[in-house]
């Protein structure tokens, strides 16, 4: 049957609220008697807190409580915890007695006004005993480096291996060895981190938070505060952008402990400066990559070594490295591939989940080297990619398991056509400019299949008027994941998406979800919505068969209709009423859905740049992104995600960076100095999805959100390399004009 809802563009379902200013974000909320919380951060990169003097601060009118590392629980946790029994290193505390970066939390004030809280925070006196600090990941990894945590700075390594790499290198025609380096970057969500915690006399804690994982946050809070889960309610009313930055717990325990101390609701909203310094970054990394190729360009062996800079705490370093180690097996037909990665502590802000989750780092290194290999072997870069690209029937070399249906070749063919690769690669820049084209492949997974549990439960109710209500643990970050769920349900039930209302991300009200990360939105959560709708449909059809006395029923336009006799029909509303009246039973279903396979989404990006000879300034003038996202379920949302991903990728490539002074203090902690691309700075962008179909995906769909960002930086780098011939091995890409005119 032809689908009516799937494949059509729907604006994000709460657009009207957002367009009218009626959407309520957490910082827009106030509770009676609410206090304002303000955090005091470490001003040094490494040291022991010897004493904290709050005498003067407590005298400020309106101050109700001051929490410090000396009067709050010191139970260790991991802010990247995902589920109850998740086994990862617990290294953080609410406030630190040993501070490990400029921006570590040492105390917080709750006061009747924000002004009073700010004033008081500035009056708190902290005495530190400074310790040696290390910011460079390679320095920190050295055996004699000062340990940031007991046991040293190098955490356990992650390894992955396919074939025999040494044997492969022995067969190689040429071997390339390079070192690449990527910087920490910030998510740059426009809504700063914000939450309101409300501890009440019945020992209940309710937290409204702009977060991506209410169920995980509930577990962490229960550990830190030693509370049972049923006494904690986490709610995410809305999120003003996240990109992974609100997946890991940051300010919630602070608000919670202040509320517990005062028995009043406490709101903590960070400033932009605080978001930069004290929340999370994408992992910086140093990557060594050694590649052996045959004369034909075929890669025979690749050896990858990564030092992943986790910053001052462990957080999600293992998860990110693990994810990264999987992805490199999904793109090429490399028979011998070896991976080794070690996370390393340094005294810079904590690294965490960010859109791409390891992929932007590793594909930057691998794809940048591909640009170099193509030039050296004098093979067109697109051709080199085609020689090595995994085919639709390809296998993951590591486990010899099917990759699914990767349409990389289609992306290469259609993308180079749209971009006009052949024509553009021969263009010579106008006087004063060097012209170049580049491209890169990137990939990202769909969920965490194989890594750990990956499921979601949903509840779906049929209302008396034939409309439905979905109870979902999905947090829509603006990417349309809940909209997508309503599309799935509407398609199955033969209604329109506006007939599906949703209650989202509230631990007291909706069934469990793993959390919104790992590009689970379509492949896992969307599939779950389809599945729960199918269960509801079965109940509806069962009742309709009883009423209409026929078995050949389909659901269409709000009715259950006989295919052989269209006069036999009954509305969903009448069925709900029939159930109430005759059965005295509710038509509500609950269903769990687990991920079915570890599939991958692919993207191929093309960039055209001009490099100004006088200044070395790089300008991207055109850009084409071609993706395999299986069957595109919502073209509007998918294109939106892709455009946004490119925006983020361009920033990663050219402008965004954490700049630290010699003391480890970030010096570009504002939107003025941390340069995200603005509308007039963006190139012309063309986006395209190849015709794909994922067998295990709902209606053939795969994810897009994270994959969108991955190929951008190496595509730009390869274009700059093509234009200038200068080998750049570090992000953000900078060209010295001296090098240019050599």
């Amino acid at each position, binding site marked *: 049957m032809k689908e009516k809802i799937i494949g059509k563009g729907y604006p994000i379902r709460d657009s009207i609220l957002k367009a009218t200013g009626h959407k309520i974000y957490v910082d827009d909320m106030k509770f009676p008697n609410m206090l304002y919380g303000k955090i005091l951060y470490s001003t040094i990169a490494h040291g022991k807190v010897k004493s904290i003097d709050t005498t003067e601060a407590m005298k400020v009118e309106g101050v109700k409580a001051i929490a410090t590392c000396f009067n709050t629980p010191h139970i260790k946790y991991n802010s990247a915890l995902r589920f109850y029994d998740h086994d990862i290193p617990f290294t953080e505390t609410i406030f630190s007695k040993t501070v490990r970066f400029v921006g570590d939390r040492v105390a917080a004030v709750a006061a009747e006004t924000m002004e009073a809280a700010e004033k008081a925070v500035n009056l708190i006196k902290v005495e530190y005993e400074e310790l040696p600090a290390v910011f460079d990941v390679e320095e920190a990894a050295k055996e004699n480096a000062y340990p940031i945590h007991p046991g040293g700075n190098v955490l356990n390594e992650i390894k992955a291996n396919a074939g025999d790499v040494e044997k492969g290198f022995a067969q190689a025609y040429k071997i390339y060895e390079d070192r690449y380096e990527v910087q920490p970057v910030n998510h740059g969500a426009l809504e700063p981190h914000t939450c309101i915690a409300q501890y009440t006399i019945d020992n209940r804690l309710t937290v409204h938070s702009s977060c991506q994982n209410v169920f995980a946050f509930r577990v962490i809070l229960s550990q830190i505060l030693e509370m049972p889960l049923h006494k904690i309610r986490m709610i995410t009313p809305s999120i003003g952008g996240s990109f992974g930055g609100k997946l890991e717990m940051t300010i919630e325990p602070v608000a919670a402990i202040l509320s517990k101390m005062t028995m009043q609701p406490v709101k903590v909203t960070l400033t932009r400066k605080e978001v930069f310094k004290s929340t999370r970054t994408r992992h910086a990394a140093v990557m060594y990559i050694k590649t052996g190729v045959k004369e034909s360009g075929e890669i025979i062996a690749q050896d990858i070594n990564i030092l992943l800079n986790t910053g001052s705490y462990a957080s999600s370093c293992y998860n990110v490295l693990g994810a990264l180690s999987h992805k490199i097996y999904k793109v090429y037909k490399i028979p011998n591939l070896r991976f080794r990665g070690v996370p390393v502590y340094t005294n810079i802000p904590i690294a965490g989940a960010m859109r791409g989750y390891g992929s932007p780092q590793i594909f930057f290194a691998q794809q940048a080297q591909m640009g170099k290999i193509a030039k050296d072997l004098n093979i067109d870069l697109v051709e080199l990619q085609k020689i090595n690209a995994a085919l639709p029937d390809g296998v993951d070399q590591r486990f010899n398991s099917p990759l699914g249906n990767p349409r990389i070749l289609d992306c290469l063919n259609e993308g180079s056509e749209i971009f006009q690769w052949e024509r553009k690669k021969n263009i010579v820049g106008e006087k004063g400019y060097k012209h170049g084209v580049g491209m890169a492949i990137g990939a990202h997974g769909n969920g965490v299949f194989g890594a750990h549990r990956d499921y979601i439960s949903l509840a779906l109710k049929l209302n008396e008027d034939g409309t439905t209500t979905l109870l979902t643990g999905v947090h829509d970050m603006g990417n349309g994941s809940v909209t997508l769920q309503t599309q799935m349900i509407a398609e199955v039930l033969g209604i329109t998406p506006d007939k599906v209302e949703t209650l989202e991300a509230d631990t007291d009200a909706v069934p469990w979800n793993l959390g919104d990360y790992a590009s689970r939105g379509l492949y896992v959560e969307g599939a779950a919505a389809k599945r729960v709708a199918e269960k509801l449909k079965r109940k509806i059809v069962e009742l309709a068969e009883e009423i209409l006395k026929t078995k050949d029923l389909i659901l269409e336009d709000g009715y259950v209709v006989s295919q052989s006799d269209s006069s036999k029909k009954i509305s969903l509303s009448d069925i709900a009423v029939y159930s109430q009246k005759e059965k005295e039973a509710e038509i509500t279903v609950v269903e769990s859905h687990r991920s079915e396979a570890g599939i991958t989404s692919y993207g191929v990006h093309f960039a055209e740049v001009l490099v100004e000879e006088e200044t070395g300034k790089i300008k991207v003038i055109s850009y084409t992104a071609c993706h395999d996202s299986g069957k595109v379920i919502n073209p509007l949302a998918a294109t939106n995600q892709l455009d946004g991903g490119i925006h983020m990728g361009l920033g990663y490539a050219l402008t965004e960076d954490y700049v630290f002074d010699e003391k480890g203090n970030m010096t570009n902690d504002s939107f003025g100095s941390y340069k995200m691309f*603005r509308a007039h700075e963006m190139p012309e962008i063309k986006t395209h999805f190849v015709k794909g179909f994922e067998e295990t995906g709902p209606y053939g769909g795969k994810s897009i959100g994270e994959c969108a960002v991955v190929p951008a930086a190496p595509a730009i780098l390869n274009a700059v390399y093509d234009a200038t011939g200068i080998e750049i091995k570090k992000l953000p890409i900078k060209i010295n004009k001296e090098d240019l005119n050599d």
Partner: protein
Amino acid sequence: MENYYLNINGNNYKIIGDENESLLNILREKLNLTGAKCGCETGTCGTCKVIIDGKAVKSCRVRGFDLQNSKIETIEGLADGYKLHPIQEAFIEAGAIQCGFCTPAMILTTKALLNENKNPTEEEIRFAFRENLCRCTGYVQIVEAVKLAAKKLGGM
């Protein structure tokens, strides 16, 4: 401390207190007009933009006290009851809204632009947004929304 009045969306609001308070703070904290968002407080993200005497202005950078004779428009005043303004319709239809945090400011910036220039070029549209950051859309759909809004309003 002096009381004064601000004309916002055609209504007069009595403002009590601090003459140094930013318009953004007044809107959000005193009047509960939370459509204007605070993304940075330093005038670089543009999520707090409102229209003052026809121009899109960052409300975190102006004092309410100085606007006693001005006409202030916020996102809350744009729709006519349940009827959306054509620019709001255009943003929804074009899919120019994702997380929505920048949206009210983007819509008001569009209104100020289209008031002055009924048929802006793509370059002019992008220039009008030079002080409005968006992290979700890459601006593509926002630019499309402005073009669609111009069409709806009789331009283009």
